């Protein structure tokens, strides 16, 4: 899901850079109201965890590989806006230092994974987990929270994968060279959607669920005060 440089044309990557910068600004404004200086270590921990999770490649036998993102867990612990910022930092380091994901496509990658994936998962989580007071009182509500987070994790990563497929798939329509061949990502939507969704719906989505539920179960038990 880390789109490399060259797969998106300038109209696409330019727009996503603009949208992502705007969203990051909003996220900063939101956090300014709620974030305390004492929370900085928790942000660091969350961003680092997301970075590490993305290194665990899960293979489809004889096919491609993918991985979880940690976005849902971050949202449950830090809230969605902080999760968005944390993951954007992890994605920036991946692109700049490790060449995972492009520079031009950074805006799109952030939007897909750190924003859309996180907020889609968060919305479903809140819907299923019920009122915030329930979460705060919890004790015997843990099962419901875990279930909600699991569903959110699966939904979120698949939303991110679907957006990635759309962005890649529209490239042949947007930009063609003089010879009629695509200038950027060469695959049409009917190739990109099945290619990305097959892996994420069947395997990588469940990797995200497993990571989210296991880590959250541990946190609910040992660090319930951390849950957002």
């Amino acid at each position: 899901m880390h789109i490399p440089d060259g797969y998106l044309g300038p109209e696409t990557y330019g727009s996503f850079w603009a949208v992502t910068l705007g969203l990051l600004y909003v996220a900063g404004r939101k956090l300014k109201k709620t974030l305390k200086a004492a929370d900085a270590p928790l942000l660091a921990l969350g961003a680092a965890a997301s970075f590490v999770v993305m290194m665990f490649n899960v293979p489809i036998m004889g096919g491609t590989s993918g991985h979880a993102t940690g976005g849902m867990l971050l949202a449950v612990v830090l809230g969605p806006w902080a999760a968005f910022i944390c993951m954007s930092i992890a994605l920036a380091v991946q692109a700049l230092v490790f060449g995972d994901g492009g520079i031009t496509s950074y805006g799109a990658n952030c939007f897909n994974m750190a924003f859309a994936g996180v907020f889609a998962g968060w919305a479903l989580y809140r819907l299923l987990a019920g009122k915030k007071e329930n979460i705060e009182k919890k004790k015997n509500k843990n099962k419901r929270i875990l279930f909600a987070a699991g569903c959110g994790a699966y939904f979120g990563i698949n939303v991110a994968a679907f957006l990635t497929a759309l962005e890649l798939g529209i490239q042949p329509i947007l930009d063609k060279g003089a010879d009629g061949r695509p200038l950027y990502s060469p695959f049409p939507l009917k190739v990109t959607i099945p290619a990305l969704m097959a892996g994420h719906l069947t395997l990588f989505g469940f990797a995200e669920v497993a990571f989210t539920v296991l880590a959250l179960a541990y946190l609910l038990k040992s660090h319930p005060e951390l849950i957002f």
Partner: protein
Amino acid sequence: MTKRGKKQEQKQKQKRKKQKLWVALLIFAFLTPLGLWAPRFFGAGGAWGEWSWRELEKTIGYAPAGLKRINGLWRAPAAGYGAGYMGYLASALAGILIVAAISYTIGKLISKHKDQHGGKTKK
């Protein structure tokens, strides 16, 4: 014990609990070479759509002109998370350090004018 002492003790306890999470992350980091091993073991390639222009040329017979032009735009110092399992592990540890340092700094900057004392949990 005085009230103050009790509060101090509780703060210490909170701190130790948080340190445990960093230890957990570190243990997790030492397992990352599994993420390199698993695709090799199961004969799986990399992620779909993340090929270099050369790999793409091999599969579809040509490299789209625009893609080829900006595909190598940036030379990442540790491209592909280093070489081999040790390189992968070193990348995980270095990555944690860099990502954590940046996030910590940004977190401090955002919360700059907020209470510097108290506030052990958010909200």
